[in-house]
């Protein structure tokens, strides 16, 4: 592409440079310089991305931009992988989100982490995360994406375990990394299958190969798609592998905002959108994605109802919203999924940062039961939080309203199976608005339940990003699904949207908004009008309440079914039986034999003269008998003396 320079490799390299500078020299640099380096990196990348976006809009370049002649990474035998970056609408959108929201969160965390000991280490890891996320998004082939994939897993491990002195944080970090590795296992198998059947890992070549053979459906492609989805489920915390996200809240709040809300967890959705060519050809895989997406949405929403920790509520809400995105992808409405991804990035980052500002304001307390009545003391945080809450609840004309409806509408068109998903999605929307308004009321309304806290508003360095994000989450959806899917069409393909069976589209919107209103009403009654009502309700429905509070005991089940048996087997069966008994046993046996023969022979040397004499005689006798036998056998019985002369 000898057109205008796109500086594609520079986008990830700037944050990497930031990581190196802060990582190596951060501890010796003054805090201001560390912040400067840390902020310059995402700003630089944002500038380049904006520059490339401008080039595209001004028509100077056409997408997709596939970088030719990139340096080769691995080339052995038939396998050839290079550092080829690809820029198209999809990756440009993702880049805008990552660098934009990332930059805002960097500014926010400058204020939030101001008095932390490992300040430079935090920003080094944050820049490292940005580097890996950008590599993931720009990657032209699955292996390079895998580099970004595991890299963000590493960055999240380091950031979750930032306060490594706390065992819970260190445990959460390790848990996140290991569960991600389980997902990566699926991704690896998917890549091997791709290699086995396509001989290449580059997405464009795979897409062209699939294009050439319209006959391919199901079979191999389903297998590959499902393996890739396992990887996505691991990274984006879907049903079987979501357990790490709630624990990841141990990390600092801006980390939760950036990694566990806006960018990393959406990597799964991006990967499916990027490899949509494979998913299109396997309806089985698509239905699996849709079902798991819807199930996760509902499942996580139910758990979010009863959480008391403000960040855990948002964590379950993230899992639920991710379920929506996968539902969108599952019904082949990739553009709707990505649209929701974008709007979710805005309002979820806003909610997390606002929650961070609340926690920062009341001295690190995260328990909703201790908050209350903060409206007057944290006005800016309150108003920005309100924007976020209304956005996620699906209030009309705010961002989620457009994106969530698009997904539900697309789901509705997929026949009866789609209608079931649509119903589940609708009910989850109700739950979503309920737990968001519950949080809203508990935190900001009523009287302050913990008098000892004396909340103070956060500095403007934290409130600035909140305001910008509030504006984005309000205006984010105005682009509208039609223009957005038309913008993404070349990257993710267009999918015929059949008629909705006579029901006009605005009717769906009305239903969705009414769900949101109902949720708000119930929350209002329970938490604003009669504050003692939830306690009574919990009492009466004690069993379901206990199930939800203990998060369906999923962690305990995993421990009991997988972790404990694995440790038991390896400690007792493998270590004791195989290692000591069998392998150690064989060695001991050989040594034993040697000792035994020694002991037996030792008996001979007893020092008893007469036993020596006996053995002497026995030996002589044996010799004589032997000679006699040989002689007799040799020349028959008649011994001729002549023979002996």
């Amino acid at each position, binding site marked *: 592409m000898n057109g205008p320079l796109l500086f594609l490799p520079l986008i990830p390299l700037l944050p990497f440079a930031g990581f190196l500078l802060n990582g190596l020299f951060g501890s010796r640099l003054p805090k201001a310089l560390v912040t400067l380096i840390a902020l310059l990196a995402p700003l630089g990348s944002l500038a380049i991305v904006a520059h490339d976006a401008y080039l595209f809009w001004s028509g100077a370049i056409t997408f997709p931009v596939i970088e030719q002649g990139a340096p080769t990474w*691995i080339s052995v*035998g038939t396998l050839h992988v290079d550092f080829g970056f690809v820029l198209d609408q999809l990756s440009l959108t993702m880049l805008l989100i990552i660098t934009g929201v990332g930059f805002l969160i960097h500014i926010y965390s400058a204020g939030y982490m101001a008095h932390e000991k490992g300040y430079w280490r935090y920003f080094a890891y944050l820049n490292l995360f940005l580097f890996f996320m950008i590599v993931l998004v720009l990657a032209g082939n699955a292996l390079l994406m895998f580099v970004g994939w595991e890299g963000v897993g590493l960055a999240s491990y380091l950031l979750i*375990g930032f306060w490594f002195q706390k065992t819970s944080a260190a445990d959460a970090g390790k848990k996140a990394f290991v569960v991600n*590795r389980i997902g990566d296992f699926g991704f690896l198998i998917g890549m091997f299958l791709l290699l086995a059947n396509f001989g290449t890992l580059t997405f464009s070549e795979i897409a062209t190969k699939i294009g050439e053979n319209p006959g391919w459906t199901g079979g191999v492609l389903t297998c590959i798609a499902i393996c890739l989805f396992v990887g996505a489920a691991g990274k984006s915390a879907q049903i079987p592998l979501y357990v790490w996200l709630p624990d990841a809240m141990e990390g600092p709040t801006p980390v939760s905002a950036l990694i566990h809300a806006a960018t990393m967890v959406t990597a799964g959705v991006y990967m499916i959108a990027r490899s949509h060519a494979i998913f299109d050809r396997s309806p089985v895989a698509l239905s699996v994605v849709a079902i798991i997406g819807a199930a996760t949405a509902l499942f996580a929403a139910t758990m979010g109802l009863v959480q008391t920790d403000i960040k855990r509520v948002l964590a379950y809400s993230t899992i639920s919203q991710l379920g929506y995105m996968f539902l969108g992808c599952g019904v082949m409405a990739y553009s709707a999924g990505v649209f929701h991804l974008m709007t979710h990035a805005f309002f979820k980052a806003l909610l997390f940062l606002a929650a961070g500002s609340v926690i920062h304001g009341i001295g690190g307390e995260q328990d909703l039961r201790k908050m209350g009545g903060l409206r007057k003391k944290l006005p800016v945080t309150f108003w920005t939080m309100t924007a976020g809450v209304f956005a996620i609840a699906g209030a009309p004309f705010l961002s989620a309203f457009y994106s969530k409806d698009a997904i539900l509408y697309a789901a509705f068109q997929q026949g009866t199976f789609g209608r079931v998903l649509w119903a589940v999605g609708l009910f989850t929307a109700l739950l979503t608005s309920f737990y968001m308004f519950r949080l809203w009321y508990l935190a900001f309304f009523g009287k302050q339940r913990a008098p000892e806290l004396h909340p103070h508003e956060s500095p403007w360095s934290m409130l600035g990003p909140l305001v910008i994000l509030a504006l984005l989450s309000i205006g984010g959806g105005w682009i509208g699904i039609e223009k957005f899917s038309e913008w993404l069409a070349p990257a993710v393909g267009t999918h015929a949207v059949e008629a909705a069976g006579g029901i006009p589209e605005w009717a769906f919107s009305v239903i969705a908004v009414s769900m949101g209103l109902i949720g708000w009403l119930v929350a209002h009654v329970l938490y604003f009008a009669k504050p003692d009502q939830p306690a009574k309700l919990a009492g009466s429905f004690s069993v379901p309440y206990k199930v939800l509070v203990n998060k369906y005991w999923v962690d305990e089940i995993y421990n009991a079914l997988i972790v404990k048996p694995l440790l038991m087997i390896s400690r007792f069966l493998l270590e004791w039986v195989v290692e000591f008994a069998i392998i*150690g046993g064989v060695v001991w046996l050989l040594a034993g034999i040697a000792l035994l023969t020694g002991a037996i022979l030792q008996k001979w040397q007893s020092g008893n003269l007469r036993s020596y004499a006996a053995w002497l005689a026995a030996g002589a006798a044996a010799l004589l008998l032997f000679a006699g036998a040989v002689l007799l056998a040799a020349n028959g019985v008649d011994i001729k003396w002549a023979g002996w002369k």
Partner: protein
Amino acid sequence: MGGVEMNAIDSYILTLILLVPLAGALLIALLPDRGKLSAWIALLTVLASFGLTLHLPAHFLAGQPGFQFEVTQPWISNPAINYHVGIDGLSLWLVVLTGLLAPVGVLASWNVIQTRSKVFYALFLVQQTAMFGVFVALDLMLYYGFWELSLVPMAILIAMYGRKEGPKAATKFFLFTFIPSAPLLVAILWLYAKTGTFNFTELQSAIAGGALPAGALFWVALAFLFAFAVKVPIFPLHGWLADAFSEAPVALAMVIAGKLGLYSMLRFHVALFPEQVKCVAPVLIALTVIGILYGACLALVQRDFWRLIAFGTVGHFSLTTLGIYGLTLTGRTGAVYQTLNQGVMEGALFVLLGVIYSRYESSQIAAFGGVAAKLPRTAVFFVITSLAMVGLPMLNGFVGEFLILSSTFIGVSQGWATAATVSVILGAAYTLWLVQRVFYGPESALATEKPAADLRWNEWIVLAPLALLMLMMGLAPGLWLPTIESSMKLAPIQQTSSSQRILLPPLAVTFHDSKEAAR
């Protein structure tokens, strides 16, 4: 050797590499044992030998068949043992790796070895000569000599410098490796009796020519395999590794396992007995995959970090052996590259463990906790090394691992490959659990009361280049892969035919064959 223009030094460079450590050992042996004298001499010798080994890649002609820098001198007339040394793509980088790990070893044991340092460094240099010898020897008898020689100094040093029960571990190590080398000698002599030569290339052509009885050849190949399998070690024969690792001094622990066994397998088993390897390969594939999972599982439950690393190493080297016996070109190249990675990673890992052990005098993981606060730089390097071990992309572990697993998946069997890939999860689990229990979490009693100085100059100089090397080998494997691949390509075994591939039922899709044609 081809008439290629060779500057003067090429003809005796290998002999020089062999002799420099030996000369160093003699010099140390002669001089009195005063303070750091023998340590400094050892350091100078190993640096000199490392410099010499660097000459090899500079003048190596990639893609040229046969051996380079070859020297053949008749040594003993009857039996016809001659001093025949040479290297090709396979042994080139292993020689350089041995050269690299020598200074790492000397520097790592700089202030750990206080008593009788003269004996330590002299034997260490003899060990270096033995290892160089194993990699360059092309005459089977010469190779066998160096192979045996490499055991002796190791066993003595383990016995002398063992932490708790050195002598027991040393005898176990020595017997474990020595007993199978007896049938190896018998096999070599049988070959000599049959073909009248010890020369590797002549033997190779004689065996390939089918002049030898197949039945006996099978047992000869088995004897070769058995001796090398113990050294790697492979699953059932790894009894000695855990004891050797917990007793061996750091400088030796990093070279004790893996390289020698794996190189010998590639050179003297896979290349020498192509037919026999084909019928033994399925058994070995099964053993290695079991070994991978077995090593990982056991590493999960160890209480002593030396033993944990030992079982982790069993797992990692079984993966490398899986690459060798997958009998695919990519697999073998990946295996050789993984051996190099493993050498670098083990080197860094043992230096770090040596640092922790020398500061805290304990290897019980339970006693540790929150050490990162006291030793921040050690923690950083430890995390980098363990991530490389776990196979994080961008670091060197991943490249080899991916090559081996993908080639096994495509070339051998998808069932075994999937089982082997599970090790990716287990590997992450036990490594990070170790890092967390030792470095993170609240400070344990041991961590608080023992004053611990962070990395000293001799550890710092060693770890920084190794970490950089890990990054370079992860990002730019192209510097190493072409030479390795060219030598692997010349090996008599071609890519296994696609018919042998067993695909998952849903995969048997018609277009599959068209893809074969397309590739």
